[in-house]
């Protein structure tokens, strides 16, 4: 951040996501209001027209995600946003987008559940985002910004990845991130603008070429399995190439916190505090939740302990366990339903875990 005052704007996470999308060349947005992401749809409703893009307040989240399907099929960068209950409703649509291999960006500013729950921040839709809450064998790339600046920056990454792999990308934030304001440096340095990726598959009318079909249905025996294998190949590629994470002081750490999004901010404060107390603590902050950054968990000292910290009762921790695979201790601290593990709680838990030495 530093002292560079130029081009900095105080923005909320929701606004930064919207602005980031617009600067990344998003030309279609459809959404339905829901707290805590209303500033996002609000921002889009004003600024999309300035870009000559299309903004639609849809009649429902389901209509919105299927509109995104349509706009993307027609070849433009398209997105929707919502919060947890609304994202649940989009699951079939997301599955179709994955099945039709369409690029699309879906923003989930998570709130606490289950059901209507409340509007407070939470990270309880991790499983849904990373393992597909919809039907069938598909994945979405899942990105988790931890600051307003990163919320802005990751939008161009999202659209870039979506186009590159023809895959739905989920940006997973939470109510705190969506609502809070921070300074943001605009515009993004290297913007993966559209046009880089050609879209010969898009529906544009068949002038001068064969018919294009966008679909997820495979009628003939064997075809769907073949297609599924193709998808799996793509996913393997993404797992290999696209893991992103931030590491803080992990080198000599005996206790490594693992946290993403808003939660990671608090975990980082805790790490600083612990280090100050002479406890060798570090942090792994997954930026891609799928592919999960298993790379970051390459074998370390067997005596170290990972402490997954979540605004949930333990979802990402499963990925940590799967990555560590019994080769180190994995502990967990979490709260949900609007509760957020505090810096103090993290510090206390970490203290009980760090090997006496």
């Amino acid at each position, binding site marked *: 951040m530093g002292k560079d005052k130029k081009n900095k704007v105080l923005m909320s996470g929701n606004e930064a996501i919207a602005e980031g999308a617009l600067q990344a060349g998003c030309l279609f947005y459809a959404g339905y209001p829901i707290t805590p992401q209303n500033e996002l749809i609000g921002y889009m409703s004003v600024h999309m027209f300035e870009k000559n893009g299309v903004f639609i307040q849809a009649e429902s989240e389901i209509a919105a995600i299927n509109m995104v399907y349509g706009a993307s099929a027609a070849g433009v960068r398209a997105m929707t946003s919502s919060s947890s209950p609304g994202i649940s409703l989009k699951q079939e649509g997301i599955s179709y987008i994955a099945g039709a291999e369409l690029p699309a960006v879906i923003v989930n500013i998570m709130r606490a559940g289950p059901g209507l729950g409340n509007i407070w921040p939470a990270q309880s839709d991790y499983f849904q985002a990373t393992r597909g809450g919809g039907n069938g064998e598909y994945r979405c790339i899942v990105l988790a910004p931890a600051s307003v600046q990163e919320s802005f920056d990751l939008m161009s990454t999202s659209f870039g990845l979506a186009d590159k792999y023809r895959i739905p990308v989920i940006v997973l934030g939470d109510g705190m991130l969506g609502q809070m304001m*921070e300074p943001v440096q605009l515009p993004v340095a290297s913007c993966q603008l559209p046009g880089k990726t050609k879209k010969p598959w898009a529906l544009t009318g068949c002038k001068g070429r064969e018919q294009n079909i966008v679909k997820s249905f495979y009628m003939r025996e064997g075809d769907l399995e073949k297609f599924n294998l193709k998808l799996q190949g793509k996913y393997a590629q993404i797992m290999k190439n696209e893991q992103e994470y931030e590491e803080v002081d992990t080198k000599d750490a005996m206790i490594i916190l693992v946290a993403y999004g808003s939660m990671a901010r608090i975990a980082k404060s805790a790490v600083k505090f612990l280090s100050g107390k002479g406890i060798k603590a570090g942090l792994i902050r997954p930026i891609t939740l799928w592919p999960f950054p298993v790379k970051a968990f390459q074998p370390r000292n067997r005596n170290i302990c990972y402490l997954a910290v979540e605004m949930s009762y333990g979802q990402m921790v499963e990925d940590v366990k799967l990555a560590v695979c019994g080769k180190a201790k994995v502990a967990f601290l979490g709260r949900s339903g609007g509760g957020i593990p505090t810096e103090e709680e993290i510090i206390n838990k970490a203290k009980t875990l760090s090997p006496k030495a």
Partner: protein
Amino acid sequence: MTEKIIIAGSGGQGIMLLGKVLAEAAMFEGKFVTWLPAYGAEVRGGTAHCMVIISDEEIGSPYIDKADTLIIMNKPSLNRFSGRLKKGAVMITNSSLVTPEDKRLKAIGYPFTGLAVKLGNVKVANMVALGCYLAHKKTVGISSVLAIIKKMAPAGRSDLVKINQGAVDMGVNLSNG
């Protein structure tokens, strides 16, 4: 330096704006800053609050459990937030509408609403409070705040700029004078 401020009052009192002006001023000075509003149905029924953190270092949670300063603009807000103050920390209160009974609380009270009415616009009570706050905690410079007020005003509304800046000045001078 890290300063955590909770600002609370009722819907029409410009609570959010107070916080934003402060946050913008901090950004203008190159500081790290976060601003977190109360949101959603919480807002119904007329209470409003926001949380501002200003720091020289990266900020963890924007949520404030224990505040370095409270700015309390009405009575319900006092009840809700008085427990959130760090031991020995300062509370700025709008004595037009609220005066803490608990004598253990270190409260600096001035009649912001009343003073704003005197200035000709009840709505600038928030800026009087901001000035008062800045006089006590020099988190950001007064000049930054005045610049931000100018920047944030709609074009052609120099009247607004003037009265708001005047309100800040009045607030600054309350305890100075």
